[in-house]
């Protein structure tokens, strides 16, 4: 068993455990921490794949910004443990089997298609970060600009939502 595989399995186990604990934890903060674990593990996987830049961005944006926001909000709203209501019978009984079926189907189809499209020759070629920026500013420049607009709108929306109305 080669080193990458070992690393992969360690990280994968980490991620899965984190996700499970995200589900099982009672307190949102704990869920948030579990999610952070998942994200870090994923960042590691990205590094393993060879997507350095994505890994870094994953940590910086997800770990450093988004999750911090989550934690911040949780602390701000002083969210306690969630109350275990079960108003939705559908979710209570139908949720788990459906989710499992979905997972199964996804795994099956993706592996099939992954096998069909993946070709090992070129696999794993490490992509220098420079090329990403080149692509980003040439091929994908319009989507990129669009995302900037998206962010602008998001900022305004967040401001409008979060401000207390002046009385």
């Amino acid at each position, binding site marked *: 068993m080669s080193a990458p595989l070992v690393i992969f399995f360690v990280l994968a186990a980490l991620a899965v455990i984190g996700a499970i604990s995200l589900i099982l934890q009672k*307190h949102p*903060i*704990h869920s948030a*921490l579990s999610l*952070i674990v998942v994200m*870090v593990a994923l*960042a590691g996987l990205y590094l393993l794949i060879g997507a*350095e*830049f994505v890994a*870094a*961005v994953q*940590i*910086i944006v997800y*770990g*450093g*910004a988004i999750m*911090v*926001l989550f*934690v*911040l909000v*949780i*602390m*701000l709203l002083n969210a306690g443990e969630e109350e275990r209501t079960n108003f939705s019978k559908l979710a209570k009984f139908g949720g788990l089997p459906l989710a499992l079926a979905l997972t199964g189907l996804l795994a099956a189809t993706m592996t099939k298609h992954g096998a069909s499209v993946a070709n090992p020759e070129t696999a794993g070629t490490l992509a*220098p*970060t*420079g090329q990403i920026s080149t692509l980003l500013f040439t091929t994908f420049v319009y989507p990129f600009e669009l995302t900037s607009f998206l962010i602008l709108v998001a900022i305004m929306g967040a401001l409008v939502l979060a401000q207390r109305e002046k009385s």
Partner: protein
Amino acid sequence: MPGGVDKFVYLLAPFLALTLSLASLAVIPFGPKPLPFPFFGGHQIDLWITNPDIGLLILFAVTALGVYGIALAGWASNSKYPLLGGLRSSAQMVSYELALTMSVVGVVLMANTFNLSRIIDAQSGRTLWGILPAWNIISFHGGFPQLVGFFCFFTAAIAETNRVPFDLPEAESELVAGFHTEYSSFKFAMFFIAEYTSMITVSALCAILFFGGWNSPFPASDFWKFTHYLPSVILIPFGLWVIYDGIKYETIWGRLVLPVIGSVITLIGAVLLAFPAINEFVQAPFWLLAKIFFFLFFYVWTRGTLPRFRYDQLMNIGWKLLLPVSIANVIVTAGFVLWRAGK
């Protein structure tokens, strides 16, 4: 351990803080050349732990995670002052991280890489007709002097490390001791080690990104060879002064230890004098450490000088001053880089 705390998180917080800030040191290169003499059977040892292509990014990633230590500590303490402290720190760090990252982009543009050692190499040489070292802070070649960038970066860095005048998370006058009110003993110590470590990291970053890293300010020509003896010139008198000062120290313990330390320092200076090879090797780390030392000094200096900002001022500076200015800096620099590339 105070009652009613969330034990796991309460313990996790300081560990997180410390590990992350120590980890951030891992990517900082202290010198270009590996140790001249091999260890462990021919293994050559560099002056850095790792030097990845995206070193800078990784650094930011790790520092970005650093906020959790404080925020979680504040929350886990199950007490209102820490909670407020945690809130403040997380908000503050998230806001200033933007300015921090933005202000660095200029440098990255000029060096065209995230790799720290290569950034430093890009600053070797002279600028302005050889008068000045080609440090990003003043260099015209390859781009535009990052003066503005530096100020933005340093301010943001101070805020990022929760130091005066941005130390609202631990503002004694308002929140007893901020996020670590409920901490004591080594957990408390961990927080402080973490804080100072991140100070060091940030200072190192300043030196590397804007002040030419390990490049000496003097030209590399033979005429300026004598500057290579600066280390010993500084170390030997300092060591002698330590010995002298130690002998007439109050406590017996001091009288024993200080002279030893002094003599060691003096010895190092002497060794450097004696062995030019080692001296040459030491040049780069020396300058880098000197710069780091300067910034640490600056930290303490500002702490002794400036009063603490109000929270709204803090936010205003972060969002309305630093961020726009750094973005403008990026734009200008990018323009210059383009222009230079065109030439």
